[in-house]
């Protein structure tokens, strides 16, 4: 059953088209990822779904309700964690949670079962002001606050942006753990590698959805053989040389190596190596590799621009 249904949704800010007629569905108890850079329209989309912004065009249904008219129902049954830390920094951990419990007409005690795995990690700092918490702990507190009323749908807007890898990892474990409580989760992120942690993802760029699928299918959808290249002379020289190569399809830096596609379909490893050796490169390594979400995203973005 679809918890969220969106059809031909558009939203403009003046001349800027934040969302360009997008459509998708999110299923019950799914972790649905909105993956894309700043300006892709992720936050706008989340705010339309949670009734904070009105759409210009299109149909939106959240838990079967219209965010425009039945926003009271929606607000009662969703949890929302905005992109930046939005709790009261001058209130302690406990005071913040108590406050959010009261505005939803509940108590920490009643929700303890749902939040305990997260809350236990910050409970030792109950009396510390929220402003004095580390980034990772702030995120956990904000998540507790968003969960305090047992929401059916949870919106997380870039919960891991600016958070170090350790905290990111912990945070994703927590999100995964919420699965057992039958909560549908919509999470946005600019980190392409986090796509793999979702059940399904929508790759977004400049107000459009480039692809919706399972992370596995997205990563495998790369339409060309992909090679990882490396040479002793360094990436910059290698890129320059490859850009001048007549069979080049695309090349871009990827971590320590370069990711390369060729215009020819056959295995070109030997030929390419020969060419690069002639160009004066040494210790050349060429490897055929499996593509990942980021490779696909770059590919789709290039197609989008054409």
């Amino acid at each position, binding site marked *: 059953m679809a918890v969220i249904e969106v059809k031909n949704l558009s939203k403009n800010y003046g001349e800027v088209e934040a969302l360009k007629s997008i459509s998708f569905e999110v299923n019950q108890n799914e972790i649905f990822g909105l993956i894309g*850079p700043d*300006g892709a329209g992720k936050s706008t989309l989340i705010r339309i779904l949670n009734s904070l912004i009105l759409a210009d065009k299109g149909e939106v249904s959240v838990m079967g309700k219209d965010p425009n008219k039945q926003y009271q129902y929606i607000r009662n049954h969703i949890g929302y964690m905005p992109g930046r830390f939005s709790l009261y920094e001058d209130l302690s951990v406990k005071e913040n949670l108590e406050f959010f419990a009261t505005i939803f007409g509940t108590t920490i005690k009643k929700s303890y079962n749902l939040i305990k795995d997260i809350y236990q990690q910050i409970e030792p700092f109950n009396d510390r002001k929220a402003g004095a918490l*580390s980034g990772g702990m702030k995120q956990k507190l904000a998540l507790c606050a968003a969960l305090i009323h047992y929401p059916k749908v949870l919106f997380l807007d870039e919960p891991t942006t*600016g958070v170090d*890898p*350790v905290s990111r990892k912990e945070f994703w474990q927590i999100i995964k753990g919420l699965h057992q409580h039958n909560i549908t989760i919509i999470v946005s992120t600019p980190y392409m590698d986090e796509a793999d942690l979702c059940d399904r993802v929508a790759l977004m760029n400049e107000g459009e959805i480039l692809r919706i699928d399972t992370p596995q299918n997205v990563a495998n959808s790369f339409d060309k053989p992909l090679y990882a290249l490396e040479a002793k002379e360094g990436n910059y020289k290698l890129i320059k040389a490859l850009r001048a190569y007549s069979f080049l399809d695309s090349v*871009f830096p990827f971590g320590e190596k370069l990711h390369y596609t060729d215009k020819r379909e056959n295995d070109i490893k030997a030929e390419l190596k020969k060419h690069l050796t002639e160009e004066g490169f040494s210790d050349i390594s060429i490897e055929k590799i499996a593509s990942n979400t980021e490779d696909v995203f770059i590919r789709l*973005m290039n197609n989008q621009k054409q």
Partner: protein
Amino acid sequence: MNSEKIIETTKLTKAFGSFKAVNEITFDVKKGEIFGFLGANGAGKSTAMKMLTGLLSPTSGEATVAGFDVFTQQEKIKKNIGYMSQKFSLYDDLSLLENIKFFGGIYGLSKEQLNERGTAMIERLGLADVSHKLLKEVPLGWKQKIAFSVATLHQPKIVFLDEPTGGVDPITRRQFWEMIYEAADNGTTVFVTTHYMDEAEYCNRISMMVDGRIAGYGSPKELKADFKTENMDEVFVKIARGENYKLQ
């Protein structure tokens, strides 16, 4: 890249009261190197960077940046470095040209130099059409590239980049890194702080700070081999959890 050391620190320390934000860090950065300066929030990255850019006096230890002492020659250091961060880079309500003039001006570029380098930069980035537009009207992806170009307009020996590419799309991010490669190729040393671990892999060498100390130091390849992992994320997690790793 050669072996000339352009940044060198020995037991560099900054204490605020009894709290040591930076605790005896020792490392060096070579000329033309892309050096990644990693660590979680609050690990001491910003404090260390402020000392290296001459904004904060160290408590003890030694350090030279571009050949100048961080205790006594802070003003000379400032003249020889460029700085760009995600938070502060350029003025949104000035046009591209005005920004170039302003930032070039504060680094003491002459009118001729400004004209020459400004025009060359605008041409290189293909921005002739938008050079009179206010920066806030320029697409997000461009801004970082422009900011980097402006930060290197006075041809500094070292450019410090503080979390430069947060939230940028993957293509723009790569274009940005190509600019960094190019600068390094021209002999500019690039010092980057980031907590994007994939970005760390673009660096020649990195150091990783945990609780004010350097807990990991070397090329991404070496670190991954040492920790027997596939990616830098895992390296970071292992270091942050305090797994044994001998310094240097």
